């Protein structure tokens, strides 16, 4: 394999996860903060809030996972590796 291609793929794999983690990180922080606020205001609703929070956290997590899938494709199933 061309060494330029492999170097570029490794850099791109690192960047794809790193960049994909920024947005969901901010979003998850916001969601968790709001959930804590909600629990502090209404402790009896804790179970409901927790369930919804976990479900929505997993949705946000999925965005990072897309970056991970791209990185995995670059590392293990590189389409330019002819």
């Amino acid at each position, binding site marked *: 394999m061309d060494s330029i291609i*492999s170097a570029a793929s490794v850099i791109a794999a690192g960047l794809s996860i790193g960049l994909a983690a920024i947005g969901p990180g901010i979003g998850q922080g916001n969601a968790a903060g709001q959930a804590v606020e909600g629990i502090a205001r209404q402790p009896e609703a804790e179970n409901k809030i927790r369930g919804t929070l976990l*479900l929505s956290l*997993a949705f946000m997590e*999925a965005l990072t996972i*897309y970056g*991970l899938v791209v990185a995995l494709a670059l*590392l*293990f199933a590189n389409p330019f590796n002819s």
Partner: protein
Amino acid sequence: MYPDNFYSSTFTLLAEAEVGKHFYWNIAGFLVHGQVLLVIWFVAAVLFILSILGTRDTNRIPKGWQNFMESTIEFITDIAKNQLGESFYKEWIPYIGTLFLFIFGCNWAGAIIPWKLIELPEGELAAPTNDINTTVALALMTSFSYFYAGLSKKGLGYFKRYVSPIPLLLPINILEDFTKPLSLSFRLFGNVLADELTITVLTGLVPLVIPLPIMLLGLFAGSVQALIFSTLAAAYIAEALE
């Protein structure tokens, strides 16, 4: 040049991920991934045995396995009822429930059972959901079922929703039909594979104790992903039905 398998010392005996290596079977001209099929059959057998144990000599007052299976069914019914509403949920319980139990069983079977002890000529046994073919199949099944739900309820009037609220949104609405299965399959595949890779890398660095919390996190993530997949499938079906 690329690491085909993360490989270190003898400590990685129980956790070594091999990405892109498969135990190929040639069935009628098709190459299939044998290691995935083996674990799928195992999970299906476990679910089958559990349901037989649960329904054998049923009592009015449940106890033992019957009790356990009844609470499982109640949990599944709740998922379907929350998304689909009172009037439609009954006929979709089997589909949603099968999705949930199958994905849950696959994720946990991959995380709990030390498959590494069973040697294969090539590739290794792991959670079937860490193969993208499995998750794409599940996601496409969901696509077909929401089309079926919409078409059987509204007939050709179902396609009216592509031009609502305004015809300008037609391309986006069509695109949505492709992104739904794509995101469903990538989410499940990426989560399961990410867990396995994390555990592998950590086991390579520190073989003892340290990977344990991550393994527990993997179990938790596996169950949450099963819940999310089935919830989303139910939500898509509900969207087509409304």
